[in-house]
């Protein structure tokens, strides 16, 4: 049972290209617990949804035996406090409210919508950049040359990182994100890990400097709002601002890369939808929702734990046990979605689990949606004769943040921007 255990097969990189048959098998045992001390995997839509709203479930890493290591050393080598994705109420709620007052309504209702033009500009430039590579009927890698640089640039603009610092900032982020790779993650001596630690220190110091500048001289950006603290909850401490900034960076990075890349892959596998998107930009909205159901960038939430014994589907999950909420399996639960294996942007009532649910529901969802809608629509419009050169493409190792490492595309060219 051990080496062929289902959860091991799911996390095995060999399953990455198509984990969905395994999820189908998984749903047959709604709460799967295979190994002493191992996780309890919950895979049916309604059970997952219920647990995401269950106040007996904690997101606080400190309640778990083996915590993750995504904290960042602060300016003087101190460790940053956990960010709100890893906290329970009331701390979670306070920090999220302050972050929200810098991000959305009622205090900043236009922050995201106001970025529409800027996002289109970034996408436009990236696509212009592809034009030369594509010129001779060439080959492009959608990940390295488009999907990867896009979200970092967006986060820079959102936080208020000055343009001239963007290349440095992106350099650090690239190294940190590379360090999240499960292959090297647990080997502190690996060069990638050493480099990542180094980059964390540098990014931390850089951000601390920026925070100080913005508290002295506020501008119209998120960092300024976070330190100004306009809402009834006041401001975050500098350390809290730093962990929040890093959270936004990490949480909004690989997820968005994968959404765009999975999106293009799926559309190329279903060309009639790519065609329709090219004709009708409004189709981008349901396409992105269906992608979040059909190929969710966050496949599972691996670090929940219960603070008391709970019963799910007749199985008792003991206090302190680790729970895996299998979002991608729930998204294809036939009890909730008719014909779940079909990519169908027109499906009604598509309340997918792609952004989670409950108090930790994705904070960046409005931004992520807009980024993906603009990116996919522009790709559909401007890439001339795109085709998959490798199907399935090579995947990243992570079973949690799942997506292609590269997406080699053949293109006949890149059409010029349609301005307006």
């Amino acid at each position, binding site marked *: 049972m051990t080496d062929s255990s289902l959860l091991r097969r799911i996390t095995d990189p060999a399953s990455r290209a198509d984990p969905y048959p395994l999820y189908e098998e998984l749903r047959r045992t709604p709460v799967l617990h295979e190994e002493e001390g191992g996780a309890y995997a919950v895979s049916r839509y309604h059970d997952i949804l*219920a647990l995401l709203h269950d106040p007996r479930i904690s997101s606080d890493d400190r309640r778990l035996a083996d915590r993750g290591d995504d904290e960042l050393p602060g300016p003087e080598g101190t460790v940053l406090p956990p960010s709100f994705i890893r906290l329970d109420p009331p701390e979670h709620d306070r920090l999220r409210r302050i972050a929200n007052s810098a991000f959305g309504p009622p205090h900043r209702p236009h922050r995201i919508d106001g970025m529409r033009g800027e996002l289109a500009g970034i996408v436009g430039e990236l696509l212009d950049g592809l034009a030369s590579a594509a010129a001779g009927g060439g080959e492009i890698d959608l990940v390295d040359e488009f999907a990867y640089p896009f979200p970092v640039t967006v986060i820079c603009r959102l936080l208020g990182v000055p343009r001239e610092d963007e290349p440095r900032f992106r350099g650090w982020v690239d190294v940190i994100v590379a360090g999240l790779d499960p292959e090297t993650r647990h080997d502190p001596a690996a060069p990638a890990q050493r480099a990542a630690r180094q980059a964390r220190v540098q990014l931390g110091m850089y951000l601390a400097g920026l925070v100080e500048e913005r508290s002295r001289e506020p501008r119209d950006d998120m960092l300024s709002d976070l330190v100004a603290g306009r809402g009834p909850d006041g401001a975050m401490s500098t350390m809290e601002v730093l962990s929040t900034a890093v959270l936004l960076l990490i949480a909004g990075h690989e997820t968005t890369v994968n959404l765009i890349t999975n999106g293009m892959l799926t559309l190329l596998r279903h060309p009639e939808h790519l065609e329709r998107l090219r004709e009708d930009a409004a189709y981008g909205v349901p396409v992105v929702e269906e992608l979040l159901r059909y190929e969710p960038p966050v496949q599972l939430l691996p670090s929940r734990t219960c603070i008391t014994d709970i019963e799910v589907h007749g199985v008792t999950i003991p206090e302190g046990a680790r729970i895996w909420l299998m979002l991608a399996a729930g998204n294809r639960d036939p009890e*909730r979605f008719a014909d779940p294996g079909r990519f169908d942007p027109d499906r009604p009532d598509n309340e997918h689990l792609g952004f989670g649910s409950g108090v930790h529901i994705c904070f960046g969802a409005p931004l992520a949606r807009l980024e993906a809608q603009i990116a996919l629509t522009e790709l559909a419009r401007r890439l001339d004769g795109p085709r998959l050169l490798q199907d399935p493409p090579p995947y990243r190792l992570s079973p949690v943040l799942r997506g292609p490492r590269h997406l080699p595309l053949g293109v006949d060219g890149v059409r010029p921007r349609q301005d307006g």
Partner: protein
Amino acid sequence: MHEPYHEWLRREGRIVVVGASLAGLRAAETLRAEGFAGSLTMIGDEPHPPYDRPPLSKAVLLGRAAPDRTELPRRREIDADWRLGVAAIGLDLAGRRVRLADGGEVPYDRLLIATGVRARPWPDEDEARLDGVFVLRTRGDAVRLHRRLKASPRRVFVIGAGFTGSEIASACRQQGLAVTVAERADAPLVGALGSVVGAVAADLHREGGVDLRTNVQVTALEGDRVGRVRAAHLSDGSVVETDVVVVALGAVRNTEWLAGSGLAAGPRGVACDAGCRAFDVRGIVTDDVFVAGDVARSPHPLFGYQFLSLEHWGNAVAQAEVAAHNMISGSSDRRPHLWVPAFWSSQFGVNIKSIGVPSMGTEIMITQGSLAERRFVGVYGHQGRVIAAVSFDNTRWLDFYQRLIETGAPFPVEFTTVDRRPEGRRPVPAAFPDPSLPTHGPTVTVSGYAPSDRRLVFTPARP
């Protein structure tokens, strides 16, 4: 599979909906979505196509939404014969006809009654007619009140601190108007949520700058020589000068048009079974008249089969969908209306939501957050079971408490929860002014997720 009658009904039957608002519209849409191809007539006494009411006491009063811009979004085309601006004035049950105020008659094979409620007027008719005295139920009410509020009155006097009165007070304060609220109970929202939560609501009012008067009744409204309201007299002898009075004393059910029809319709609404079929006065259920929305009273298995009258937006939608489905389905395909009551309100910057029937609760415990911080979840218990929950700025947890209600989970809530404070470990009396105590019966729980597979699990009472 449908038997021949329902086949015919779906193909060419005549369905009449009286009350062209939320419940009426959603029922009509469901009928068409489920394949009803016959004729559909929508009768409404208001001149407008269906619009949404909740914004009237919120965004509209704040000037954030125009009163004539709150049309209900349409889910689909319904291809109906709209008879707007004309009231139904009578029902001939045996002859299956609705009589209209314009003298016309509309025959039906199936009738849906969705006439809702109207604002309870100020009992003294002369005082109610004074210029500056308002109620708030319709779009017209909202337009008139909004116009008056924009003219910077010196003070707004709100009678009744239920949800609507509290929302109006909040909206007025947000616009910087001086506001007095008079409430007969010891705090706002007491009837709906009890005194423990009412005390929090009272703090919200006072901190929001409302001059809140509790344990008082308004005894008279005083007008000036030209018939404008100028003051309100209270039972404690005080007099408050004001130029706007909003009467928020709850609602009256629109059932007068059914008087003498033979249906079990009266001041408490139109009684119907869990399948939304109306009862006649003999207590026999009809097969061709259905009821949905605020005007309906229906027995709910989770709450001791008590007949509940709910003035809840979500109930109107859910009940309309069930009624519509059942209108065109044979008995074995019919569904029960098992909606767990849910209500939301926003006032003084706080989102309040309740589920279940709080007023049946005898005790409450705060399982998450704290009353003092005005962010919490309170759970109501009744005879050892969780019967309701309320949240202040904590809506995202309520699905969990809904499951507790549906499964008849034990009360007090012993297990730990995130953000449980010391104050929340013990239940305290919920303190409703007039607790209604239904008798202890068998346990009934709900299972299933989709409307079509929701089931009741019946467990006989243990000795």
